[in-house]
């Protein structure tokens, strides 16, 4: 199929079947947002991930899962029971015409229903299968139950986050799922490049736990190189460079040691530098060793300011400071507005427009925002089954009555 240059999305022509739940719905969303054609396949009746909050409130007809909505924008949606014999053969017909399958079933499930990678590859030797599970396809814990909380714990995120006098703290939102989806999408794109040379498909195995451990930044680096066991220390960053301090109207995230003389001059001009003016504080090692005192004096000063005063004035002096923004403040951010980060999506069921976070990149070519809302359950059944697989109206009705579609 030839696509006119000006209409070509970055990944136009790439075909993806999405069998994933909330663990990796975001993986194929990343691909869909760049122009791939993604078909979400749900069980007849709809995927359980439609029941995960938050929900849009006050809608006319039905409440919509915003989590499902966000993870499934720009996708088509069909229903199919791949466990039933006829459903399976329909699925394999779709597999023939596809490049990528994303799935999140427990390891071994696809083999049980005779749809494992070997079978899929026989149907389509170029198929790329990406499996996202709690612990991966192998290893002693592969069959253990997982979720974002378990992945954060086993992955090492929680131990190093939170206050020392409180329990370890999980990252907000399903971060293990987002990280795993980013790795999974990267794996898909790497496999595509390999396939262009070899003509061969691949099975990619992504673990939520490993996705967490792989994004711990300093934690394993310091453990392996210095045998340091990183621990949680509240908002004070591991290297004591950043912390969060209170202002009149909120909190500022600031640096404690950078451009020290400029900082002290600024505080002193307001009569608030106290003993930090003493010569001994010019020594960075001394500051580091007495960080609690630095924080005490600094917070007396920050409390006399509005957050945005410190942010804007600080940035003029090249201090990497920022307000600790709540979601509401993020939405009002002038920078995000100016870059049109939020996009409007029509929501046919609600008969309204939903605003949705966009993508973090601007491509000079080929990024055509499709701006399609997440599909309602089975929204594209007619189009895919009748137009693409050539199934008759009667046959479709029969499959629907048998709960295969």
């Amino acid at each position: 199929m030839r696509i006119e240059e000006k209409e070509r999305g970055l990944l136009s022509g790439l075909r993806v079947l999405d069998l994933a739940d909330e663990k990796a719905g975001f993986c194929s969303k990343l691909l869909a947002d760049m122009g791939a054609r993604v078909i979400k396949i749900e069980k007849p009746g709809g995927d359980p991930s439609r029941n995960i909050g938050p929900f849009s409130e006050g809608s006319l007809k039905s409440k919509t899962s915003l989590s499902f909505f966000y993870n499934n924008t720009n996708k088509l949606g069909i229903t199919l029971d791949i466990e039933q014999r006829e459903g399976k053969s329909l699925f394999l017909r779709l597999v023939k015409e596809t490049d990528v399958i994303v799935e999140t079933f427990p390891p071994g499930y696809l083999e049980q229903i005779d749809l494992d990678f070997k079978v899929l590859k026989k149907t389509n030797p170029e198929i790329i299968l990406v499996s996202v599970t709690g612990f991966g396809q192998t290893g002693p814990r592969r069959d253990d139950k997982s979720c974002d909380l378990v992945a954060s714990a086993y992955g090492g995120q929680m131990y190093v986050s939170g206050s020392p006098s409180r329990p370890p703290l999980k990252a907000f939102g399903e971060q293990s799922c987002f990280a795993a989806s980013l790795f999974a999408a990267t794996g898909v794109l790497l496999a595509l490049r390999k396939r262009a040379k070899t003509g061969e498909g691949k099975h990619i195995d992504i673990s939520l736990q490993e996705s967490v451990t792989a994004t711990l930044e300093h934690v394993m680096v310091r453990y392996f190189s210095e045998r340091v066991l990183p621990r949680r220390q509240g908002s004070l960053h591991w290297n004591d460079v950043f912390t969060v301090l209170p202002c009149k109207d909120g909190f500022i995230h600031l640096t404690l040691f950078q451009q020290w003389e400029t900082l002290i001059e600024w505080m002193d001009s307001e009569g608030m530098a106290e003993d930090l003016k003493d010569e001994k504080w010019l020594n960075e090692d001394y500051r580091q060793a007495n960080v609690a005192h630095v924080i005490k004096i600094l917070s007396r000063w920050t409390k006399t300011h509005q957050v945005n005063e410190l942010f804007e004035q600080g940035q003029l002096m090249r201090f990497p400071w920022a307000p600790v923004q709540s979601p509401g403040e993020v939405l009002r951010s002038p920078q995000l507005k100016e870059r049109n980060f939020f996009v409007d999506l029509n929501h046919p069921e609600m008969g309204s427009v939903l605003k949705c976070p966009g993508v973090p990149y601007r491509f000079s070519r080929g990024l055509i925002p499709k701006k399609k809302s997440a599909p309602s359950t089975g929204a594209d059944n007619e189009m895919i089954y009748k137009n693409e697989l050539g199934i008759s109206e009667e046959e479709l009705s029969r499959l629907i009555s048998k709960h295969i579609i």
Partner: protein
Amino acid sequence: MDLTRVLAGPYSTRILADFGAEIIKVQSKKTATGAESNTAPYFCAWNRNKSSITLDLSRLEARELFLKLVKISDVVVENFSPRVMTNWDLNYDRLKEVNAELIMLSMSGMGQTGKWKDFVAFGPTLQSLGGLTYLTSYSQDEPTGLGYAYADLVSGLYGVIAILAALEYRDKTGHGQYIDLSEYEAVCTTLGPTLMDALTNQNEVLPKGNAAGHIPAAPYGCYKCLGEDRWCVIAVFSDEEWNDLCSVMDNPTWAMEDRFSTPTKRKINEAELDTRIEKWTSKQTAEEVAKLLQEAEISSGVVQDAEDLSNDPQLLARDFFVELKHPILGTTTTDKNPIKFRGSKQESLRASPLLGEANHYVFQELLGLSENDIRSYRKKGIIA
């Protein structure tokens, strides 16, 4: 060509390097300090499998050599403040003059446009700005956040996805392009459902510690176990799992009380429930709790520290860590890429390069400079 520094950029190019791309990292004696010092463990972690050359890009002749390398490259990645490349006359418009098919990725805190574009930001700054620090807290009066620069790794992943998508596009159309990646926006994408909640419902979303929030689960959280600073997590999503948990705990009488009999009631009485559960967990090790509950098919696990991770049988069974020989630091241990291609030969991994280690290969073999040219560039402080 890799002009990136510290973390977000180097992580992006490391993923490409892990899978066989030839990454030439441009360094200079002046800038190879701190986190960019070639023998810093932090540097070694993010720059394995790359080659290093030295070029002092503040010098015109160095930039001319750089342009020659751009000519024979597929991709240029940089994460300077937005002004730097333009000040050097090395912005995309200039680079595409020497290589029309080039893909250039600029990674910055705020993106290349907008009134904040020149603001200075690091990973933790952007976690605060993007809402992640506020939400990852016990309460709104005590913003806490993650204990590490997660945003840089998320940005790194987005960077590599952008490059690979642009390569796909180039394969089909022959066109290169410019990509502007904002780390602030990258953080925001990881809070998509929550931002939509705030947008659609005008809801004020508050931090809730480890509470499940929108997930219909109770008990759900982190519980103290036997030993110093040892913890487990438990997540119970259904009545069936609750009953199984009760039987693992030997059906204590409190668990049979009416106020814990349905998911809604357990949620309402969550504080009480958590106290009871913790009484039970605190008498055994986190490993024992996880084992007992997983046998009963309940989501549970150990809050692992770095030492636990280094000995984790699951990670070890999957060859998650690897030892690399570094010419100065000796044997170093690092984590492999979590993208696993089943049945494929593992890509071979090399330790990070020494400063200017590939100067000879790059300038002589790739650019065809003579020994004499190189010597003179060195003398003049261009290759330096």
